[in-house]
């Protein structure tokens, strides 16, 4: 299998990860599209250095989160973009109730600081503390403490 075929297969198998990260780190559709492309670009750029000594998802999370951190922005920017509007981000086919609940959850996560955003995303993805620690570089005990605080913070935000 060629490098391109392997890469596209990996991206297609894991496109949900990238999508969820863009929803958390970018506030509107346009920025989400831009961030999505930037993440794919960064993954491609570092694909040669991925030696398979870590899980693919671990590698993807690390680069995607770093890219989101680095490139997420408050102001708008322009530039030539591949149009994703009709492909990934608009046609979710969620039911309205689910969509509303998801939107509330995204909103709550989005207002967390950059550290907490990354950790809670990985926690929600079902990652164990030691895997979160491995991806983020924080210690396992630090992760446990932070997750507890984040859950409490979100709970208080929702109750407000």
């Amino acid at each position, binding site marked *: 299998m060629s490098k391109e075929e392997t890469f596209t297969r990996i991206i297609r198998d894991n496109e949900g990860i990238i999508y*969820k990260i863009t929803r958390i780190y970018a506030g509107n559709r346009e920025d989400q599209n831009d961030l999505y492309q930037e993440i794919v670009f960064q993954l491609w750029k570092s694909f040669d250095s991925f030696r398979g000594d870590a899980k693919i998802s671990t590698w993807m999370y690390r680069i995607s989160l770093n890219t989101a951190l680095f490139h997420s922005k408050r102001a708008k920017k322009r530039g030539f973009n591949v149009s994703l509007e009709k492909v990934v981000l608009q046609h979710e086919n969620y039911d309205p109730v689910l969509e509303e609940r998801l939107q509330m959850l995204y909103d709550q996560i989005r207002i967390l600081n950059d550290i907490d955003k990354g950790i809670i995303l990985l926690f*929600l993805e079902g990652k164990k503390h030691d895997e979160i620690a491995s991806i983020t570089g924080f210690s396992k005990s630090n992760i446990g403490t932070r997750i507890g605080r984040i859950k409490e913070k979100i709970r208080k935000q929702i109750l407000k």
Partner: protein
Amino acid sequence: MQTLWTQLSSQLESQKKLTNKLIMEMTQQKFRNRFYKLSLYETSGAVICFVFAFIILLNLDKMNAWYLMLCSIVTLLFLVVLPILSLGAIKGMRSLNLAKHSYKETLLRFNKKRKNMLLIQKVAVMLGVVMMWVSIPVFSMIMNNKDFFTIKHDPWLWVFTGAVTIGVILFSRYGYRGYKKVTASAENVLKDLEDHSDY
């Protein structure tokens, strides 16, 4: 929260939309990230500053008074040093290797570099008003061969200059507040990382 997220994940699984063609198109995209655009603006600004600095250098012999020479040197320093520092800071940001470091390490490096870049921007904003006044005598000599400090001025010149100064101060305050906010955000992250680094 977990249940909701799991529902989202399974919905996404059933909706895979990307094509190989789209993915490979995305890998070819260049020059679209914000740091590239920031570099472009800063580089353009730097070129303009260097052009003016060059004009001053060419006309240094016209500065026949010590105060004019002093204004020229200060203006030159401002026009040369600040753009170089600014471009260096942006280069530092762009050089971050997103594939090499963990999220925590990226957070640390990114926010330190961001703070550094913001400091330079804040200094530039603060000095902007001062430099506007310092450069007036220099360009008065270069363009009109007149010593700004000794010639008689039309009162309207002071009104106009005063109005421009107020405008520049207001704009600078607005810009400075924006930078201060972003700096505070970077500092909070660094402090958070520092406070919880022991466990």
